[in-house]
């Protein structure tokens, strides 16, 4: 398959979003007795998204992004996403402590002792500042 620019793929994804918006908006009233309905505005920006993304799919040719290092960013995102999912089951301290440990030990290759210290101090700091000092509940 011919190599496509990132604009092609992002344009395609946005075209799908535009099509979804238009399809949804067509199911709602466009005009009512009182004036424009809930479908009026979404229909027009949905069409605009479709038009702009079609332009991007056909004419977009920005050079490919530099994805070197993206693995590190996506791994961090995965850790954060997992942590917010687990907050409900294991609480903020363990979930956030694990993310902090992961960033320090795995991403920045510091020793497990340093990573554990950073994780412990940040979690303790959050408990001191938010629930104790400010009265803000942690997740």
């Amino acid at each position, binding site marked *: 398959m011919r190599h496509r620019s*990132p*604009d092609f793929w*992002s344009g395609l994804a*946005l075209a799908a*979003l535009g099509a979804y*918006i238009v399809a*949804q908006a067509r199911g*709602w*009233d466009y*005009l*009512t007795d009182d*004036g*424009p*309905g*809930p479908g*009026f*505005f*979404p229909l027009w*920006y949905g069409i*605009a*998204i479709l038009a*702009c*993304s079609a332009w*991007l799919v056909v004419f*977009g040719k920005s050079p490919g*992004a530099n*994805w*070197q*290092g*993206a693995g*590190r*960013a996506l791994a*961090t*995102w995965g850790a*954060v*996403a997992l*942590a*917010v*999912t687990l*907050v*409900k089951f294991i609480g903020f301290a363990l979930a*956030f402590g694990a*993310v*902090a440990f992961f*960033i*320090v030990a795995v*991403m*920045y290759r*510091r020793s497990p002792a340093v990573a554990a210290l*950073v*994780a412990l101090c*940040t979690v303790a700091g*959050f408990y001191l500042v*938010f629930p104790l000092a*400010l*009265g*803000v*509940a*942690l*997740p």
Partner: protein
Amino acid sequence: MDIAAGLLHGFALALQPLNLLWCFVGVLLGTIVGIMPGLGPPATIAMLLPLTALMNPAGAIIMLAGIYYGAKYGGSTTSILLNVPGESASVVTCLDGYAMARKGRAGPALGIAAIASFIAGTVGVLGLMLVAPPLAKLALAFSSPEYFALMSLGLAMVVLLAGKSMVKALLAMLVGLWIAGIGTDVFTSQSRFTFGHMELLSGIDFVVVAIGIFALGEVLANMEAREEPQVLPVPKGLRNLLPTMQDLRDCRFAFAQGSVLGFLVGVLPGAGSTIASFISYGVEKAFSKRRDQFGTGVIEGVAAPEGANNSETGGALVPLLTLGIPGSGTTAILLAALVLWGFKPGPLFIAENPGMFWGLVASMYIGNVMLLVLNLPLVPLFAQVLRTPVYVLYPLIVGISIVGVYAGSGSLFDLYLLAGFGLLGYLMRKLDYPSAPLILGLVLGGAMERALRQSLMMSEGHLSILVSRPISAVMLALALVVLCIPLFSRFNTWRLRAMEQEES
């Protein structure tokens, strides 16, 4: 309330001990945020926004505004010592600031940046104080069609916030409009784009999107690199930081033009402080007797852009507070903050909340003095912030983001959205989609749809109401003109060059 009485009232409010404390906290945080590359004022303000629910609104806006203009002061420190702008508005300061530091003149470069920031920042607040009240009075004649035209003008400014691709900026803005439309339609109670989730019926909180895209997205983008930059040494002692009398004489024109141009550019929504600093640098160079030396460590090359980017802050608050139009990502978040606290920035804002407006103005005068005091003798101390290990900083930002989002809503669902918007923010950076237009669309989307639907109700469905009223017609025509700006190739070439500099 006339200006003198308003200002006195404002100082009475801003000088209250608690508000002075918030002002100090804001400018201190702003300076630190400005110094740290990779953590900008929009991310910081977005992260702190939920926590301001515990404060009184006057103290909260004083603190958040302090972060906004304080970051402009701090941004120059990294430009001069690291050749890495701490803030996009300080990009052009790298050219002569870093060159001065390499010649052993880091002290005077940092000193002149602080002095220029103080002078121009004060002129910017003066401009805000003089221009905002009459402009707000003029805008009192606005009804729904005018508001719709105003929002259209605000959204048209997207062409100025666009990066390399106008189409991508438009798409980002349209996605912002879509996100703003998620939830229950206020006119008909129809639920829209909720994907069957009860949690989405009340819409997506602006704070979740802002923190996800700015704070989390920025952390993810910064996580790509492992190396930490090297800092040039800062001279110790106040005497070594002060510019000479000759330096000050050389910068007279830079102080004046930076102050005026910065304010004027700031008033134009969408132009922003980066563009203000580039224009001011260009004007300084064009009129300088030693223009061929610019880029090799000329002190006016530091004073002009640093002055302009500080004066721009006062200008940017004019359309925000009088018309409800934010011109940048940061002012969009400030707008959302005001709305969250129950205020309605727009023509009635000053009349209905004189204490808030004049208190903010007075706090900015005080904040600029605080910043001068902080940034001259304490620069060596602030430079130590640059030595904070990133492996400590990034987990902190992630933690504050999570707590900030949860504190606002108490909903775990919002944390999932936060992770989603964090990924979106990162992908937007990688794929060259500017994030400011998305925030602009998100902030203005709901109000724009309301204004359009109310206008069409008034006219029983006739679109002609939008062009038959003079103010509305003029603003729509202006929006059209702004949208056509990219067609003027000379302007576009210049704009793209500024954007490329910002990226490098």
